[in-house]
Protein backbone atom coordinates (compact mmCIF):
# COMPACT_ATOMS: atom_id res chain seq x y z
CA UNK A 1 0.00 0.00 0.00
CA UNK A 2 1.17 3.49 -0.69
CA UNK A 3 2.45 5.73 2.08
CA UNK A 4 0.64 8.69 3.59
CA UNK A 5 1.64 12.28 2.87
CA UNK A 6 2.14 12.52 6.66
CA UNK A 7 4.62 9.90 7.90
CA UNK A 8 3.09 10.01 11.40
CA UNK A 9 -0.17 8.67 9.88
CA UNK A 10 1.44 5.71 8.09
CA UNK A 11 0.65 3.10 10.76
CA UNK A 12 -3.02 3.88 11.10
CA UNK A 13 -3.35 4.34 7.33
CA UNK A 14 -1.87 0.89 6.72
CA UNK A 15 -4.36 -0.65 9.17
CA UNK A 16 -7.26 1.15 7.56
CA UNK A 17 -6.20 0.30 3.99
CA UNK A 18 -5.85 -3.40 4.86
CA UNK A 19 -9.26 -3.41 6.52
CA UNK A 20 -10.87 -1.60 3.59
CA UNK A 21 -9.38 -3.89 0.95
CA UNK A 22 -10.62 -6.98 2.80
CA UNK A 23 -14.08 -5.46 3.13
CA UNK A 24 -14.09 -4.39 -0.54
CA UNK A 25 -13.11 -7.77 -1.95
CA UNK A 26 -15.00 -10.02 0.48
CA UNK A 27 -18.14 -8.02 1.20
CA UNK A 28 -18.72 -5.08 -1.12
CA UNK A 29 -18.01 -6.88 -4.40
CA UNK A 30 -20.34 -9.67 -3.29
CA UNK A 31 -23.18 -7.23 -2.92
CA UNK A 32 -23.01 -6.59 0.85
CA UNK A 33 -22.93 -2.85 0.40
CA UNK A 34 -24.69 -1.82 3.59
CA UNK A 35 -22.01 -1.70 6.27
CA UNK A 36 -18.43 -0.67 6.42
CA UNK A 37 -16.70 -2.24 9.39
CA UNK A 38 -13.55 -0.14 8.94
CA UNK A 39 -15.23 3.09 10.03
CA UNK A 40 -13.45 3.26 13.40
CA UNK A 41 -9.98 2.90 11.86
CA UNK A 42 -10.90 5.40 9.16
CA UNK A 43 -11.99 7.96 11.71
CA UNK A 44 -8.62 7.70 13.52
CA UNK A 45 -6.71 7.93 10.23
CA UNK A 46 -8.73 10.97 9.16
CA UNK A 47 -8.03 12.78 12.42
CA UNK A 48 -4.30 12.28 11.90
CA UNK A 49 -4.44 13.20 8.20
CA UNK A 50 -6.56 16.33 8.56
CA UNK A 51 -4.12 17.80 11.04
CA UNK A 52 -1.28 17.31 8.55
CA UNK A 53 -3.28 18.70 5.60
CA UNK A 54 -4.06 21.81 7.59
CA UNK A 55 -0.43 22.32 8.55
CA UNK A 56 0.66 21.94 4.93
CA UNK A 57 -2.07 24.25 3.67
CA UNK A 58 -3.49 21.56 1.40
CA UNK A 59 -6.93 21.67 3.01
CA UNK A 60 -7.80 25.01 1.37
CA UNK A 61 -6.64 23.74 -2.05
CA UNK A 62 -8.92 20.75 -1.55
CA UNK A 63 -11.89 22.94 -0.67
CA UNK A 64 -11.46 24.83 -3.93
CA UNK A 65 -11.16 21.60 -5.93
CA UNK A 66 -14.29 20.20 -4.30
CA UNK A 67 -16.27 23.27 -5.30
CA UNK A 68 -14.96 23.16 -8.85
CA UNK A 69 -15.62 19.44 -9.34
CA UNK A 70 -19.01 18.95 -7.78
CA UNK A 71 -20.64 18.19 -11.15
CA UNK A 72 -19.03 14.75 -11.39
CA UNK A 73 -21.34 13.63 -8.56
CA UNK A 74 -24.34 14.60 -10.64
CA UNK A 75 -23.05 12.50 -13.48
CA UNK A 76 -21.75 9.41 -11.68
CA UNK A 77 -23.86 9.13 -8.53
CA UNK A 78 -27.18 9.09 -10.31
CA UNK A 79 -29.36 6.02 -10.03
CA UNK A 80 -28.55 3.43 -12.64
Amino acid at each position, binding site marked *: *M*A*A*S*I*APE*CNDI*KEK*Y*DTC*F*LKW*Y*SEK*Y*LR*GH*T*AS*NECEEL*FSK*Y*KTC*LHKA*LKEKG*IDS*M*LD*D*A*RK*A*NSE*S*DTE*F*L*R*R*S
Partner: protein
Amino acid sequence: MKVFSSTCTFDYSWEEVSTANWRKYSPWNDKSTHVVAVDTLSRTIDPETGILRTERLITCDQSVPQWVLSLFGGSATSHVYEISYVDLKLKRVTMCSTNLTWSNVLNVQETVIYQPSPSKPTSTTNFNQEAKITALCGGWQKIKNKVEEASVERFSQNATRGREGFEAVLEMSRRVFGEQRERENGRLQP
Protein backbone atom coordinates in the same frame (compact mmCIF):
# COMPACT_ATOMS: atom_id res chain seq x y z
CA MET B 1 -6.86 22.72 -24.89
CA LYS B 2 -5.25 19.42 -25.76
CA VAL B 3 -6.72 15.98 -25.24
CA PHE B 4 -4.78 12.88 -24.41
CA SER B 5 -6.55 9.55 -24.55
CA SER B 6 -5.56 5.92 -24.33
CA THR B 7 -7.28 2.57 -24.07
CA CYS B 8 -6.13 -0.91 -23.23
CA THR B 9 -7.44 -4.26 -22.06
CA PHE B 10 -6.28 -6.16 -19.00
CA ASP B 11 -6.56 -9.97 -18.94
CA TYR B 12 -8.15 -9.91 -15.52
CA SER B 13 -11.77 -9.84 -14.40
CA TRP B 14 -13.39 -6.55 -13.47
CA GLU B 15 -13.53 -7.68 -9.83
CA GLU B 16 -9.77 -8.31 -9.82
CA VAL B 17 -8.99 -5.03 -11.58
CA SER B 18 -11.24 -2.94 -9.37
CA THR B 19 -9.68 -4.50 -6.24
CA ALA B 20 -6.08 -4.15 -7.44
CA ASN B 21 -6.84 -0.57 -8.45
CA TRP B 22 -6.88 0.40 -4.75
CA ARG B 23 -3.29 -0.68 -4.46
CA LYS B 24 -2.13 0.54 -7.85
CA TYR B 25 0.53 2.71 -6.22
CA SER B 26 1.85 0.09 -3.80
CA PRO B 27 5.46 -1.16 -3.71
CA TRP B 28 4.31 -3.88 -6.16
CA ASN B 29 4.24 -1.14 -8.78
CA ASP B 30 7.87 -0.32 -9.50
CA LYS B 31 7.07 1.88 -12.51
CA SER B 32 4.96 4.66 -11.04
CA THR B 33 7.59 5.76 -8.54
CA HIS B 34 6.65 9.41 -9.06
CA VAL B 35 3.60 8.76 -6.85
CA VAL B 36 4.91 9.10 -3.30
CA ALA B 37 1.69 9.11 -1.28
CA VAL B 38 -1.99 8.20 -1.64
CA ASP B 39 -4.38 9.34 1.08
CA THR B 40 -8.08 8.63 1.39
CA LEU B 41 -10.01 11.76 2.32
CA SER B 42 -13.55 10.44 2.44
CA ARG B 43 -15.53 7.33 1.59
CA THR B 44 -19.29 6.90 1.42
CA ILE B 45 -21.76 4.38 0.08
CA ASP B 46 -24.90 5.74 -1.50
CA PRO B 47 -27.73 3.95 0.35
CA GLU B 48 -29.97 3.89 -2.72
CA THR B 49 -27.59 2.90 -5.49
CA GLY B 50 -24.82 1.17 -3.51
CA ILE B 51 -22.29 3.31 -5.38
CA LEU B 52 -19.03 3.62 -3.45
CA ARG B 53 -17.67 7.17 -3.64
CA THR B 54 -14.08 7.84 -2.58
CA GLU B 55 -12.06 11.04 -2.45
CA ARG B 56 -8.29 10.70 -2.47
CA LEU B 57 -5.27 12.95 -2.43
CA ILE B 58 -2.41 11.73 -4.58
CA THR B 59 1.02 13.22 -4.04
CA CYS B 60 3.61 13.09 -6.81
CA ASP B 61 7.23 13.97 -6.80
CA GLN B 62 8.68 14.18 -10.23
CA SER B 63 11.08 16.01 -12.37
CA VAL B 64 9.48 18.95 -14.10
CA PRO B 65 11.16 20.49 -17.13
CA GLN B 66 13.50 23.20 -15.86
CA TRP B 67 11.96 25.87 -18.09
CA VAL B 68 8.57 25.24 -16.50
CA LEU B 69 10.04 25.74 -13.04
CA SER B 70 11.82 28.90 -14.16
CA LEU B 71 8.64 30.30 -15.70
CA PHE B 72 6.19 29.45 -12.97
CA GLY B 73 8.28 28.71 -9.91
CA GLY B 74 7.13 26.23 -7.35
CA SER B 75 8.51 22.87 -6.33
CA ALA B 76 8.51 19.46 -7.95
CA THR B 77 5.94 18.09 -5.49
CA SER B 78 2.43 18.18 -6.84
CA HIS B 79 -0.97 17.10 -5.61
CA VAL B 80 -3.89 15.54 -7.44
CA TYR B 81 -7.46 15.37 -6.16
CA GLU B 82 -9.39 12.29 -7.27
CA ILE B 83 -13.04 11.32 -6.88
CA SER B 84 -13.90 7.75 -7.79
CA TYR B 85 -17.18 5.92 -8.14
CA VAL B 86 -17.62 2.15 -8.05
CA ASP B 87 -20.97 1.20 -9.54
CA LEU B 88 -21.55 -2.44 -8.74
CA LYS B 89 -24.71 -2.72 -10.81
CA LEU B 90 -23.08 -1.36 -13.95
CA LYS B 91 -19.73 -2.95 -13.09
CA ARG B 92 -18.01 0.32 -13.72
CA VAL B 93 -15.24 2.17 -11.92
CA THR B 94 -14.95 5.84 -12.82
CA MET B 95 -12.12 8.01 -11.54
CA CYS B 96 -12.09 11.78 -12.06
CA SER B 97 -8.88 13.59 -11.22
CA THR B 98 -7.73 17.15 -11.27
CA ASN B 99 -4.49 18.90 -10.39
CA LEU B 100 -4.32 20.94 -7.18
CA THR B 101 -0.84 22.26 -7.77
CA TRP B 102 -0.29 24.94 -10.41
CA SER B 103 -4.02 25.14 -10.90
CA ASN B 104 -3.68 28.82 -11.80
CA VAL B 105 -1.39 27.91 -14.72
CA LEU B 106 -2.68 24.59 -15.93
CA ASN B 107 -5.90 22.65 -15.64
CA VAL B 108 -5.80 18.89 -16.11
CA GLN B 109 -9.05 16.94 -15.98
CA GLU B 110 -8.59 13.22 -16.24
CA THR B 111 -11.29 10.56 -16.42
CA VAL B 112 -10.47 6.87 -16.20
CA ILE B 113 -13.08 4.14 -16.63
CA TYR B 114 -12.69 0.41 -15.97
CA GLN B 115 -15.44 -1.80 -17.37
CA PRO B 116 -15.71 -5.48 -18.38
CA SER B 117 -14.81 -5.87 -22.07
CA PRO B 118 -17.89 -6.66 -24.13
CA SER B 119 -16.16 -9.58 -25.89
CA LYS B 120 -15.01 -11.43 -22.74
CA PRO B 121 -16.82 -9.74 -19.86
CA THR B 122 -15.99 -12.32 -17.18
CA SER B 123 -12.24 -12.43 -17.70
CA THR B 124 -11.05 -9.19 -19.29
CA THR B 125 -11.43 -5.52 -18.43
CA ASN B 126 -11.23 -2.43 -20.60
CA PHE B 127 -9.38 0.65 -19.46
CA ASN B 128 -10.26 4.05 -20.94
CA GLN B 129 -8.37 7.18 -20.08
CA GLU B 130 -8.98 10.70 -21.26
CA ALA B 131 -7.25 13.84 -20.09
CA LYS B 132 -8.14 17.39 -21.05
CA ILE B 133 -5.22 19.71 -20.59
CA THR B 134 -5.68 23.47 -20.71
CA ALA B 135 -2.98 26.08 -20.13
CA LEU B 136 -4.45 29.04 -18.30
CA CYS B 137 -1.52 31.40 -18.17
CA GLY B 138 -2.38 34.70 -19.76
CA GLY B 139 -0.34 36.05 -22.60
CA TRP B 140 1.37 34.36 -25.44
CA GLN B 141 -0.40 31.55 -27.20
CA LYS B 142 3.03 30.14 -27.99
CA ILE B 143 3.78 29.61 -24.32
CA LYS B 144 0.35 28.12 -23.70
CA ASN B 145 0.90 25.65 -26.53
CA LYS B 146 4.31 24.76 -25.21
CA VAL B 147 2.95 24.15 -21.69
CA GLU B 148 0.14 22.00 -23.06
CA GLU B 149 2.47 20.00 -25.30
CA ALA B 150 4.92 19.33 -22.47
CA SER B 151 2.03 18.23 -20.26
CA VAL B 152 0.61 15.87 -22.86
CA GLU B 153 4.05 14.35 -23.36
CA ARG B 154 4.50 13.81 -19.63
CA PHE B 155 1.00 12.40 -19.40
CA SER B 156 1.71 9.93 -22.15
CA GLN B 157 4.93 8.74 -20.50
CA ASN B 158 3.18 8.30 -17.16
CA ALA B 159 0.30 6.44 -18.83
CA THR B 160 2.65 3.86 -20.34
CA ARG B 161 4.52 3.42 -17.08
CA GLY B 162 1.24 3.31 -15.18
CA ARG B 163 -0.05 0.49 -17.37
CA GLU B 164 3.13 -1.56 -16.95
CA GLY B 165 3.15 -0.96 -13.22
CA PHE B 166 -0.50 -1.91 -12.88
CA GLU B 167 0.10 -5.19 -14.73
CA ALA B 168 2.66 -6.06 -12.04
CA VAL B 169 0.16 -5.18 -9.29
CA LEU B 170 -2.53 -7.33 -10.93
CA GLU B 171 -0.19 -10.29 -11.15
CA MET B 172 0.91 -9.99 -7.51
CA SER B 173 -2.66 -9.45 -6.40
CA ARG B 174 -3.84 -12.64 -8.10
CA ARG B 175 -0.95 -14.60 -6.57
CA VAL B 176 -1.55 -13.29 -3.05
CA PHE B 177 -5.31 -13.88 -3.21
CA GLY B 178 -4.67 -17.39 -4.55
CA GLU B 179 -2.33 -18.22 -1.69
CA GLN B 180 -4.78 -16.80 0.80
CA ARG B 181 -7.56 -18.98 -0.61
CA GLU B 182 -5.32 -22.05 -0.46
CA ARG B 183 -4.49 -21.36 3.16
CA GLU B 184 -8.14 -20.93 4.01
CA ASN B 185 -9.13 -24.12 2.19
CA GLY B 186 -6.32 -25.99 3.92
CA ARG B 187 -7.51 -24.81 7.28
CA LEU B 188 -11.03 -25.99 6.57
CA GLN B 189 -9.95 -29.53 5.80
CA PRO B 190 -9.64 -31.87 8.81
